[in-house]
Structure formats: C-alpha cells, structure tokens
C-alpha cells in the first residue's frame, strides 16, 4: 500500500501543477461564470471614453447647455435607458413626463438666460445685468425642483425592481461624471482637449487657431473670477440618494440636500456657459456671432422629442 501511494503521489503532484490553472472559475452568485474586476479608466477617458461616438457627443452637448433640473434631470434622463418591462412602460413614461413638467419653470428660466446670451453674442456685447437677473431666476426655480419632483421619485421607487433601482443609481452617477467633465472649471487650461466646449465651438464656428487661443485665454481669466463649484456637495447628495434609493424604504422628501445641490449645479453650469460665450463674443466675426447666437437660441428652444410642446 505504501508503495502504491509512493507511486501515485508524484503523479498527483504533477497533475496538480499542470491542472492548477484549470481550476473552476470564480463562481457568480448563481454559480456558472467567471468574473473579474475591470481596470478603472484614466481620468481623461472615464467620462467619455477614448473615442467619442455620436451618442456620447450628443450627451456631452446636452450636459453643456442644459442644467436646470440638476440631479432631478439626471434621474429623468436615466429613465430613457432603464430597460423597463412592458408592464412597467406606461407607469415609467408617466413618471418621466411628470418630472419634466415639474421642471418646466426651471427650464423656462434657463431658456431666458440662453436667449439673453444669444442676443448679447449677436450684438457682440452681453448685457450683464440682464444675464444676472435671468440667472437669479434660474437659481430660484431650480432650487424648487427637488420638492416638486419628490412624489414622482417616490412613485418611481415603487415602480422599479431592486436591480432597476441599482441601474438608475449607476446611470445617475454616470450622468454626474459626464456633466462634471463637460462643465469642468479647468477646461481653459487643457489646451489639448479635443472634446471640450471650446473645441466644439471651434468646430461649429470654424474658428482660427488664433481665435481659439484668444478665447481660451479670456475664458481662463474669467473663470478665475467665477464662484467656485463644490463637487463634494454634489457627490455627498448622490451618495445619500444612492443609499436611500437602493433600500426598501425610500422617501425623497427626507433628502435634505437636493434643493441646494440642484440650484448650485444649475447656476454653475449656466454661469460657466455664459462666461465662455462672453469670452468668445468680442473675438468672433459678425458671421460667427450670428451663427453662435442661432445655436444658443436652438438650445433655448430645446425639445426632447417632436411631440414635446
């Protein structure tokens, strides 16, 4: 017996070395598949990827020009791709419609800013008092969004399954990442940024390299005077929302930071946009100013679909 073991044991040892790599994969919860952790993307590609495709470009463009609902807008947008079942469809469409309706006052206030900015760009001189008054209206309106949509978000929590709630949280975080990227305070210093707002303006208005440099310099100078945006505030609100929304007991009314965060996001985003166009206006030719003003009016009259009134 001892001899038999002595013969078999080395064979088992050799087999073990050879077969170690073929050990069963890490089991998923239902026990069938290998899983692993993905590598985090570098900061500059985490938001939009290495190669910006059409869907990504459209999303970034949306987040550069529309800030009025803050987090509430991200929630409504996340429902566009939540992957609902047929029996959930009508309820989710209604919730999304209700949320947009309740964000309408903030959207109208943002529209007033965009139209005032368009007039200023077309004239080559932005009326700062008019812009400031419109931005103040936006700050007030967007501060009211969280309370206005709280019942809709509660209804959404009841409608979604736990995995769908997690998907919504994932999408919300992703929208925040893209929005932060699209509205970064330090874009003016990122001269090699190919996908930023300045690069987009350069493309749309056929700016010369000299014009781009002048706009970038003026914008950078202007941004040093801008009130600071506190990303940590938005991140803390997101974490509070995520923790509450993925639990069984959720009440949007209990989230106390929504109003301030929505207002701060809306005013930061729109002020940043205003400062960019203010920097660009004196540098543009009359034709370029007219084109930029038309683009701003187009964004002011933005509709999510042909059926939207």
């Amino acid at each position, binding site marked *: 017996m*001892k001899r038999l073991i*002595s013969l078999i*044991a*080395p064979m*088992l*040892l050799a087999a*073990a*070395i050879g*077969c*170690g*790599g*073929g*050990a069963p*994969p890490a089991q*998923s*919860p*239902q026990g069938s*598949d*290998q*899983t*692993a*952790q*993905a*590598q*985090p*993307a570098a900061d500059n*590609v*985490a*938001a*939009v*990827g290495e190669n*910006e495709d059409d*869907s*990504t470009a*459209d*999303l970034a*463009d*949306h987040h550069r020009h529309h800030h009025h609902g803050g987090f509430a807008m991200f929630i409504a*947008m996340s429902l*566009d*791709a*939540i*992957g*609902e*079942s*047929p029996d959930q469809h009508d309820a989710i469409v209604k919730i999304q419609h209700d949320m947009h309706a309740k964000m309408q006052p903030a959207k109208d206030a943002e529209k007033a800013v965009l139209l005032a900015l368009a007039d200023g760009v077309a004239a080559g001189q932005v009326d700062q008092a008019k812009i400031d008054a419109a931005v103040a209206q936006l700050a007030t309106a967007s501060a009211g969004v969280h309370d206005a949509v709280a019942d809709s978000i509660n209804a959404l929590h009841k409608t979604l*399954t736990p*995995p*769908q709630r*997690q*998907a919504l949280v994932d*999408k919300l*975080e*992703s*929208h925040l990442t*893209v929005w932060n*990227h699209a509205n970064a305070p330090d874009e003016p210093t990122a001269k090699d940024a190919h996908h930023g707002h300045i690069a987009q303006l350069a493309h749309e208005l056929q700016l010369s390299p000299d014009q781009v440099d002048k706009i970038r310099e003026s914008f950078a100078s202007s941004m040093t005077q801008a009130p600071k945006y506190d990303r940590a505030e938005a991140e803390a609100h997101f974490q509070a929302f995520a923790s509450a929304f993925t639990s069984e007991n959720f009440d949007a009314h209990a989230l106390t930071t929504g109003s301030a965060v929505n207002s701060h996001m809306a005013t930061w985003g729109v002020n940043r946009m205003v400062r960019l166009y203010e920097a660009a206006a004196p540098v543009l030719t009359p034709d370029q100013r007219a084109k930029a003003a038309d683009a701003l009016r*187009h964004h002011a009259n933005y509709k*999510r*679909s042909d059926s939207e009134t």
Partner: protein
Amino acid sequence: MRTALLLAIPFALALGTAHEARAQAIEVVVEPPAAFIATAAPEYYEGRPVYWYNNYWYYRDHGRWGYYRSEPVWLRDRRAHWVDRRGEYVRHGYVRPAYRGEWHPAPARYRYRR
C-alpha cells in the same frame, strides 16, 4: 514521504493558479466610460444590471466595475436575439431594436437631440 507529498499537492494547485493569473494579466479590461452607462439600456442578470461593452458583460459591484470573463449562456442567448436595425437608429430618441419573438430590453443607446 506521503505526508510531504500530500502537503505539496495544495501548494502545487495554488502555484498553477498563480501561473494562470499571471498569464491572464496580460489582457487589460477597462471599465465602460460613464457616457456609455448613462445611455445604454442594461440587461438584468443574477439580480443586477449588466452592460455589454467591448465584448464583455459588465456589472457594478461595491462601487467598482466587474465583468464576466466568459459570457454567461443566458446572456449569450439574449444577445443572439438582438436585431440591430442601424437604419432606424439614426432617428433621435430611444430606439429599441426589434426582437425576434417576445419583447425584452434592448441594448440600444439613447441619443439626445441637439
């Protein structure tokens, strides 16, 4: 002798696994960008949303992105039923690709109007 060999077998198994881990580390799988997650419709598998991106299925796990190194059969079957109607995808708004058979969530990405 027998005791030494029996102790050596688990060690050898671990050694073999480590060799494989080093070999597999050559492939770097990077998490999907945020813009993709924001606009792509997930499938739901094993009680969580999963996203098909760059030939892998990704899922969120404690704040990080994980992926299935081999495609689960159920998800492979789902993907086999996707019909990507590129011709219809150009219109703005969310277009769910048509499916053969019964309805189920699509991998389409939402496109926002400009």
